[in-house]
């Protein structure tokens, strides 16, 4: 909702970028609560495939979703670069595990192109659009789609 709002009020917005597999993706920075590298997760047996575990974030229980698994590009290996992007969903914070964090870039929201059928291994339905910079393409994630529960 914040996203729609900002799209209308200002054409310029900032994207937090990160890598899912090899694909460079972005989220409107206003949707991001924080980025951390807490990896002391508690596994939840019988949880959906993409849920890596739960994490104690200052007294709140945060579900961590492996974005690689969720978006279909495969399991994210935990290295020194892996980070959790904590985003706020209607019922509490959710953590998105990404392979690597990129820069924050400015993007003109008027120049967003519709997403292709897929980007790398990631299906197009998870994107709201694609932003092109001089050096790369950034897929802008549709947070609602990413957080929705697969049946």
């Amino acid at each position, binding site marked *: 909702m914040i996203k729609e709002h900002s799209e209308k009020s200002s054409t310029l917005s900032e994207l937090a970028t990160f890598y899912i597999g090899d694909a460079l993706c972005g989220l409107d920075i206003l949707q991001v609560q924080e980025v951390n590298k807490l990896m002391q997760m508690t596994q939840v*047996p019988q949880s959906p495939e993409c849920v890596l575990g739960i994490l104690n974030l200052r007294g709140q*229980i945060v579900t961590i979703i492996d974005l690689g698994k969720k978006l279909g590009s495969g399991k994210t290996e935990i290295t020194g670069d892996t980070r959790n992007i904590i985003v706020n969903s209607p019922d509490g914070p959710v953590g998105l595990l990404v392979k690597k964090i990129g820069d924050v870039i400015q993007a003109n929201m008027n120049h967003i192109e519709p997403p292709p059928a897929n980007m790398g291994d990631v299906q197009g339905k998870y994107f709201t659009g694609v932003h092109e910079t001089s050096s790369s393409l950034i897929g802008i994630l549709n947070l609602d789609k990413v957080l929705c529960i697969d049946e």
Partner: protein
Amino acid sequence: MEIEDDEILQGFIEESLEHLADIETDLLAIEAAGQNIDEELVNKVFRAAHSIKGGAGFMGLTTIEELSHSIENVLGMIRSRKLIPTPEIVNVFLLAADQLRNLIKDIINSNEVDISSHITPLSSIADGSFEQPAAANGVASDTNAETVTEQTPPGPLPEKNTTTGIQGKVDASLRVQVSLLDSLMNLAGELVLSRNQLLQSINSTDLRHREAVGQRINLITSELQEAIMLTRMQPIGNVFNKFPRIVRDLSSKLSKVIDLTIIGRKVELDKTIIEAINDPLTHLIRNAVDHGIETIENRRKYGKPENGQIILKAYHAAGQVVIEISDDGKGLDGEALGASAVKKGLFSVEQVKAMSAKEKVNLIFMPGFSTADEVTDVSGRGVGMDVVKTNLDQLSGQVDITSEINVGTTISIKLPLTLAIIPCQIIEAGGERYAIPQINLEELLRIPAAHVKERVEKVGDAEVVRLRGHLLPLIRLADVIDIERTYLAPDTSQYQIDRRKLLHDRRGMKSPLFKDTDKPKIHPPVIDNPSQRSVTDRRYTASSALNIIVVSTGSMKYGLVVDRFLDSEEIVIKPLGRHLKQCKGYAGATIMGDRRIALILDVNNLSIMANLTSIDGSDRAADVAREEEKAALTKIEMQSLLTFKSSEKEHFGVPLNQVERIEKINRSDIESPGGKRVMKYRGGSLNLICVDDVSQVEPLADHDSYHVIVFTLCNKLVGLLSTGPIDAAEVPADIDDTALVQPGIMGSVIIDGQTTMLVNISEIAQSLFPHWFEGKNIKVLS
């Protein structure tokens, strides 16, 4: 209707509802007082009606104003003693108060509601034209109609169905005493101060100072926690107060006279619990009035006082709140309930026979026990009792019934004080920690490795454990939540994956009967003595003991097998995110002292996930019992044998349970004074025998060393000389007792392709030492 200022309206609604809640109790008190009018009480109701009228007038709520005005008028007359409050008049009041409450709850549409049915009797009372008998009848039937609709159990009360958005908002606010808020503020201040101290002390090197600050913060935190919990506490009177009305209405409808005594209104419970307990309690009270207390005629017949008694009591006990509803009615007939359960096919006749009287009475909580077609004496209370139980289960409450025919019934409900912080038992499975609410916990059971085999059995697909004569179904936590089974390796103290399929699978690695296909065949070590074996085989080490948490979910008990028991801790329940809602086995999560998360197990759902239901469980238990009976009758059981050799070719076996111990000796240890073979053993002499002493078998082979199998017979020890290898085997006990029977040999079995003769050790001893068995022995082994 347009209402400008939402906040003032909210305030009015809240205030009015509070007034109305009191009005009801007070009106009943006025009714009870009758002619001896308590002015203070009437004044209180009067003031309440007056405040509502004032507020309504201010906000343009004409209907509410009119109704409260009429009530106020009549009350004024009672106050000035122009009118005696009869039950009929109070009835009119009560109905009017109900109407007023409904109006206030649906305040937006209140001005359109027709209230003439209330205004007319009220004004006729005021001008003296109120014809009591006629009107009373009309009103009484009116009341009946209402209570009948309210009576349809289970489910929320009709009032609740009509609640609107505004009502929801009203619920969301809470009244807290100013003194409590002050103390909270004070504590928050203290916390800030301590934080400043902490920050200072972190930079300083004074360790003692730091400790002091830590302790202070510790104290403040617990005080703060308690104070915050207190804000959520509400007196149970909020629920209890509406029961006098319910009992009054229902009993007059049923032509019964019932005195309701309420004890412990001030007992406090968490707000959420207070709200949720309303429906089950109402149901139980109605049941007590409707089915528990007999009609006046019946009471007379049994020589009871005409007035039935219902006592509603709340009190604290062992950190929980107990609510008791007792009546002096006809009680529950356990036999009839049992018969009904059989008729419904819930239990077999035998099962019911095996039940205690209390268990039979508690049958009414069985889902499916209560159906609408029960209108007989037997039934009565059954209606919707399982719903009551389900409701209470959700609150982690427990319910129990004691009843005696014609004396009465007492239903007691145990509830936790709060649901936010609960004591839990922490356990470990698969390397992760889990919490089990203490309220579900019955006991912790640790079966030493050596006893697992005899106490754990397999019935069908289920494993059961013997616990004080009862069979308890077992569930492995690792299996239910689908994680790798692990065990604590005794040598490394680390978790390793467990491949054993069955808990009671304790067979030795080299047993010839059971070859493990997934394990490389290990060369059978020669067992020198059993104690050595128990060190080398992890199945018999201390860490291989079975850790079982016996939990109860209300309707059933089962054992949860876990890797390790940890501490008991007070934990704070935190909800899981929506991605994990599909995992039914967890009630939430909590944060442990080391800041990691532990999942809270929902033992009820776990039992469902494991396909364990209470009837199922008892069926299985019954199956086991039957099998046992059969086994006891025919004496065919699996038998553990110790196998050995005496000569090179022949194989022998003795029942393992007869064996005391096994000693390895050298040939030179054997002495033969007086033609009898003995050896020195524990400071005395041990008689040594051979199988060939009595039986027609090949003589003992010539070896440098022998194994002496020590038996106890008639309180004396005797050693059987044998040669290795010695092994243990489990065989079906259908012994061939024809082919090879001879003195000293009771039969034979085939073990691993070898015919093994079963030695009858007592027969051998008897023929060698007949005097032992006559009881006139002289030689005693020390």
